[in-house]
């Protein structure tokens, strides 16, 4: 009995949950942005920046997933994971999975408001942008926790 399944499950949790968060966030931001663009297409650059901000959670999740696949040697074809390591991977993945899921959605909401604010007066753009990134710190903290565990797991017994 080894922990391959748990390692892959961990990679999946990290990628999928964080991905859902980002997809929801970017999706709602993009909807609003397109509404703005239909009125004034010259705002495309600013809208793009604000729309993409909730996209980082998905990236973080993907990176944790990828690192799990690399360090558990799933990618090189001869996986070598003990049960304990498998559980560790799965546990580590939960952090960015849920952190990314909820912060992605929340950041999406903030981005929607930022877009509405920028649409009114594009001088507000930088303030909106900074406010939207305030949410990101929590995704970031989750990511760091996941990351620090994942790179240490191969040293576990």
């Amino acid at each position, binding site marked *: 009995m080894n922990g391959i399944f748990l390692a892959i499950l961990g990679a999946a949790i990290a990628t999928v949950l964080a991905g859902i968060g980002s997809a929801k966030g970017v999706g709602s931001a993009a909807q609003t942005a397109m509404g703005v663009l239909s009125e004034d297409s010259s705002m495309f650059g600013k809208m*793009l*920046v604000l729309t*993409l*901000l909730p*996209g*980082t959670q998905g*990236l*973080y999740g993907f*990176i944790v997933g*990828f*690192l799990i696949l690399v360090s558990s040697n799933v*990618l090189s074809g001869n996986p070598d994971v003990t049960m304990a390591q498998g559980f560790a991977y799965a546990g580590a993945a939960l952090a960015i999975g849920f952190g990314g899921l909820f912060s992605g959605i929340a950041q999406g909401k903030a981005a929607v408001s930022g877009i509405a604010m920028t649409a009114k007066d594009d001088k507000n*753009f*930088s303030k909106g*942008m*900074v406010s939207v*990134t*305030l949410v*990101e*710190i929590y995704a*970031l*903290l989750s*990511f*760091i926790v996941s*990351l*620090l565990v994942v*790179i240490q797991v191969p040293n576990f017994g």
Partner: protein
Amino acid sequence: MKTVRIIALREDRKRLLEHLQDSGLVQIRRGENDGKGFKKVDKTSQMQVFERNVQLTEQALKILDSAVPEKAGLLSSFKGRREIDPDELGVIASKSGDVIAVCNRIVELDKTRSDIAAELVKIRAKLEMLESWKELDIPLNTTGTRSTAIFIGSLPEEYSLSKLKEKLAAENPKLEFELEVIHSEPNLTNLVVFVPASQRVMAEDTLRSLGYSRPMSPTSKVPKVKTQKTIEKRERLIKQREDAEKEIESYAASREDIKSTQDYFRVRADKYNVINNLDHSKHVFVIDGFIPESDCEKLEKLCARVCDCCVEFGDAGDDAPVKLKNNKFAEPAQGILTMYAAPGRTDIDPTPVLAFFFYFFFGMMFSDAGYGILMVIATGLMIKLFKPDKKMRNNLKLFQYCGISTTLWGLVFGSIFGDAPAAIYNMFTGANITMADILPWPTLDPQKDALLLMIISIALGLVHILVGMGCKFIVCIKQKDYAGAFFDTGFWMLMLIGFAVLGAGVAFSPVLITVGAVIACASAVGLVLTQGRGKKGIVGKAIGGLASLYDITSYISDLLSYSRLLALGLTTGVMAQVFNMLSTMMGTNVLGIVFMIVIFLIGHAINIGLNALGSYVHTMRLQYVEMFSKFYEGGGKEFEPFSLNSKYIKIQEDK
């Protein structure tokens, strides 16, 4: 910043203002000498004429663009304004009348075109109505001749000629009739029935029983003729429209002239707007404004050259606008600063600090030598080829400096298009080497040494925050707020330094732990003693002092925020590595190599797009939220000189 007052004769007004506008030295404000023998001159109507012309040319350009789209490259938005000779301005001015006539003509043609389009819609509806009667060659309202009654109308069913004859004969065998079917379609037959005048009533009854009805609006016009005429008219209109379109297209060549003329009128409108703000007496007028200190001498020389006038300088008060002046290294970051806010009256200009940390952090987050070199080359080429305007040029410069920093950090992290050199080498030789094996210098792999890099990130964050607080310290000293400088800022700086030394002590030597702890405790005591100084009573002071220690949490969260340096740096590297892995997947045959090149290009393009954006945004956030919150007030106004505020052309500077 200085205030400036120029007094000159009214007859020199035009010349003087033109020179001031060309030089762009002075920001002119509204005069405040009303009633003391001075009054304003109203030039609004002239200004409106110019503004109307600007609008007219804008409209004409829009029409031209939709008729003959301008050939614009993908990168043309980087292009600077066209440079023209000062002499060319005279040519533009003299041609402006003709150009305005052309614009009027274009707008008129466009109106004709849309009128015709509306007319064509009407004609189409008319033809549709006539469609079922178009074969009829007598007027629709004919009722008969002396001996014959004629019924023109429709039946609500489809009949052929023979079938209808049968039907009518069956309905009323006594009826003598002759009929023609003009048109038949499902549920509709248009017909003409001829009967002897004597049988008119009988025929009408018979037809009614089949559901006969008269046309809705019988007229005396012959449908056949009318249809033909309408078709002819339609063709004439279409021809007219084509002619109008051709004529519009023929004006495409004057697009450049229209643009220059638009700028010419825009500049003149600005000038008249300024005249509105000046105070005039019978013979002289007064210009009040602001000027940067360094330009005072230039202005004096300029005025002396242009006309007899009197120039006075004074000290600007608190409401003076701010002009940022920085060296080549820091100037590109001014845009980032003004995006936040221009410095307020008590602020120092933080651009140099901002610039350094912006380049530094951007590089650390983007951290790839390959991408960095691409950035440097791309921005360099754009500056060279397009000769962009100052603002765009500064933006490009900003990314060029960021590119240099990115390259350096990429070399530190051992990342050149991710691990592309190693991956490609492995693909062809089947070896299994890493970037660390290739690069001759020791590298810091963010994947393996994540913890170390996180500590480095937070340490850099500490430096960043301390620099921010240092700025606050200087600001306080400048304002002679010594309590604010030493107690509010100094103690916290000491406290942070104390913790830093303590942290270093944990890693290196126990002596430092003691030193750090002593510094931190001492500054904590200092804070408790001083932070309640605004409160009343001993108890209030003590509580205020103790409560201030709670601020430590905000410093901790600020510091943790810098872990994004690690996170984004890692993201770039890992994403690049993923794309390299995908691209080298298909083996070393020809197909595999083609596949590799395609995936490599697409993948890295995606990675550059995503992560450059992320690095830019997060670098900005670190500056705005973590550093500026420590000292920067903002709220100033930018210096906006009276100048040639043009869109398409700019006047070459004298060399």
